[in-house]
C-alpha cells in the first residue's frame, strides 16, 4: 500500500468521525482541524486499527507528525514490518 492509498482509505474514516469533510493531505496536522482534540485522536486510533486490522506498537502514533506520517506508519504495519 502506498501513502496515497492509505490516505484515501483514511478519508471516509475521518469524514465519519468528524461528521464533516476534512480534506486529508499528507501535510495536514491535528492543529489544522478545529475539532481534532485528544478525544477524537483516541477514536481515530481505535477506528484505524479496526479498519486496517493492525495494531500500533507503543509510542508509534504519538511520534507521527502529520497525516502523511500517520499514513506511512499504517503502510508499514499493513505490510507487517
Amino acid at each position, binding site marked *: 500500500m502506498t501513502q496515497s492509498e492509505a490516505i484515501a482509505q483514511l478519508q471516509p474514516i475521518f469524514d465519519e468521525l468528524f*461528521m464533516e469533510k476534512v480534506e486529508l493531505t499528507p501535510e495536514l496536522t491535528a492543529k489544522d482541524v478545529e475539532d481534532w482534540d*485528544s478525544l477524537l485522536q483516541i*477514536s481515530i486510533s481505535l477506528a484505524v486499527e479496526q479498519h486496517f486490522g493492525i495494531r500500533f506498537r*507503543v509510542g508509534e502514533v504519538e511520534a507521527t507528525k502529520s497525516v502523511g506520517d500517520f499514513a506511512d506508519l499504517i503502510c508499514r504495519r499493513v505490510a507487517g514490518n
Partner: protein
Amino acid sequence: MLPSAAATLAPEVRGLAALKDAVLRRDPMFFGLLRERTAAAHTCEEVLLLATLRKKAERKGLVTELPSLRVALVGGYTLYPLNELIGHFLFTAKPPGSFHAEFLLGDYDNYISEILDPSSKLYEFKPEVIVFLPSSRRCRYSGNLLDARDKQEAEGRNIATQILDLCRVANSRGGAEIILANFPLPGRFDPGPYRARTLGSDWSFRKFVNLELGLNAPSYVHICDAEFLSARRGTLASWDARGWFESKQAYSPDMSVDVARECAYLAASLRVAPKKVAVLDLDNTLWGGVVGDDGLDGIEIGDTSPRGESFKAFQQYLLSLTHRGILLAVCSKNDYEKAIEPFEKHPEMVLRMKDIVAFKANWQPKSENIRQIAAELNLGLDSLVFIDDNPAEIEIVKQFVPEVETVLLSDDPSEYVGALQDTRYFEPRNLTAEDLERVDQYKREAQRRELLAAVTDMDAYLESLGMEAAIREFRTVDVPRISQLINKSNQFNLTTRRRTEAQVQEAMADPVYFGFTVRLADRFGDHGLISIVIGKVAGGEAEVDTWLMSCRVLKRQVEELVLNELVRLALARGCSRIKGVYVPSAKNGMVRNHYQALGFTPTLTSADRLEFELDPRLYAERPVRIRVAEKSYDTK
C-alpha cells in the same frame, strides 16, 4: 474501488447515522436517541463517538437542562479520558440520576498529597463526588511468596487501611462521597498455580486487599468493583500494557467504559430512590403455560422438566429478593380463583400467597391495576417494576404509567433470572446521602478530631515512605534522560529553558555551570531521575538557570532537598547570592510561588519574569524526610 469506512466500521458505529441527522437538524429527540444508544454501547470506540456527538450537539445549540455535579478524579493513573466517559454516562443516565458533570482531574499518581494537603486544588474545587483510583503498583506484597501468611495478611491489611484512611480524610474535608475503584486481578499465568496457595502473589494479594477494602469501607465509600468488572469482561481484555506505557491508562479502553459506567451508576444511586416492588405477570412468567387453559396440572413448574425447573429457579430468585426487603405483587389477566390456585395448591410452587403483598388478577387494563397496587401500598409509581413476557402488556404500561420501569422477559425461562439481575433495579445499596446525614451525625465530632490529626499525618506518611535520594552532578550516562526531561517538563519547570543533548554536554564542559540530578526511591519502588537543576556562577552569584521536577513527586520534600543541595554548592563556589528566576509559560503556573514558598525574597516583578534572591550564608538547612545516599560533586 476502495471499501468505504462506513461499510467496514462495526455495525453499532454505522447505526449512528440517525443521531448525526438529529444533531444536524438540531432535533431535541437527539437526547432520547443518545440515551438509548449509550445504554446499549459496550465498546470504548462507540462511547467516545457518542461523547463527541454530544459535544457537537451542544456546540450547535442543542441543550438540555440537567442538574450539575462536581466530580473530582484522583489516582495513580492518567485520568483522561476516563472523565469524558464518566461525564457521558452521567449525562445520559435516566433522570433523576442524570447530571451535567464538571470535572477536576488530579495529576498523574499524585493522589496521596492531593488528598492529604488541605490546601490542594482538590478541596478548592469542592467536589461532591471523588472518584479515587489508587495505584495497582502500590498493591503488591513486598516480601517473598513463601513468607508466613500472617505477615502477608498484615501487609495487605495495612495497604487497605491506608487507602481507607485517605478516603476518610477526603470525605472529612467537605463531605464528598467517595467512589473507590478496587484492584483488577492480573490476567497472566505468572507465578503459576502457586498463586492460589499464597497471599504473596499479585493475584491473591489484590483479592485480599479488595476484600479488606470492601468489608471495612464506611458508608460514604462506594466501591467501584474493578475486580468484578474486569473478571466479567476478562482479565486479559481489561488491561492494555501499551496504553499504560503510552499514557498511563488504568485500563484497556473497553474496560474504561465498564468502570466509567459503574462510576456513573454509583453516583446516580446516591440521588435516586431504589425500587421497592416487583409487579409480576403469571402465565409464562412465574410458570409455563396458561393456568386458565391448561389447568393446575397442566402448567410447567418444578423439577420434572428443564422448563419447569427454570420457572422454579426464577421464583426462588424472587423469593430471595423479599429477604432484601423487596415486595412482590401480582398483576395478571386471569380469573382470580384460577390465578390463586397454583399459589395455594401446586406442590412445586415456591411462591405462596403469603409472599405476595398485592394480588390483582382480573380483566382490567394492567396499567389500571398497577396504579391501584401503588395506591394500596402507599408507594410512588416510580418504586414499582413491572415484569411480563408479553410485549403488548409492557407497551401499554410504558405508555399509560411511564413512571413504572418495565422488564420484558424473553421466551426462554432459563434466562429470566439473569435478565432481571441485569436490570439492576433491585440491588441493595448503601443508604442515600440523606439517610447518611442522619445516621452519621454522631460520627461528625470524631471526624473533626481526626481531621486535626490528619494535618500531622502528612509527616507520618512521608516518614513511612522510607524515601532515599541520590544527588549527582550531570553524568554522561544520564544525558539522554536529562535532555528528555528538559524538553518535556512543562508544569514544574521554573524557566522552561530547553536544551538538546549537545547543549547539555556543552554546559557540562563549561566551568561557569554546575548541574545536578536527583533520583528518588521509596519502599514502593524507584521513581528514577526526577529533578534537574542547572546553576550558573558569575560574580559571587549563582543564578538558577533551570529547575524542574517530575510532578509525581510533588509534596515529597524534594523541593527542599534540592534547595539544600543548591545552597551547599553555591557556598562551595563562594557565592553570597542565589538568584531564582520564574518565567511564566502557559503551563507552569503551579510554580509561580515556588521561590517565595522556599523563603526567597522577590527582587523583580514583571509580566514575563519574576526574580528572587536568597543569601546562602544565612540559610538553615531544611529538614527533610528523605535519606540522602549520595551528594553531587562529592568525588571532586
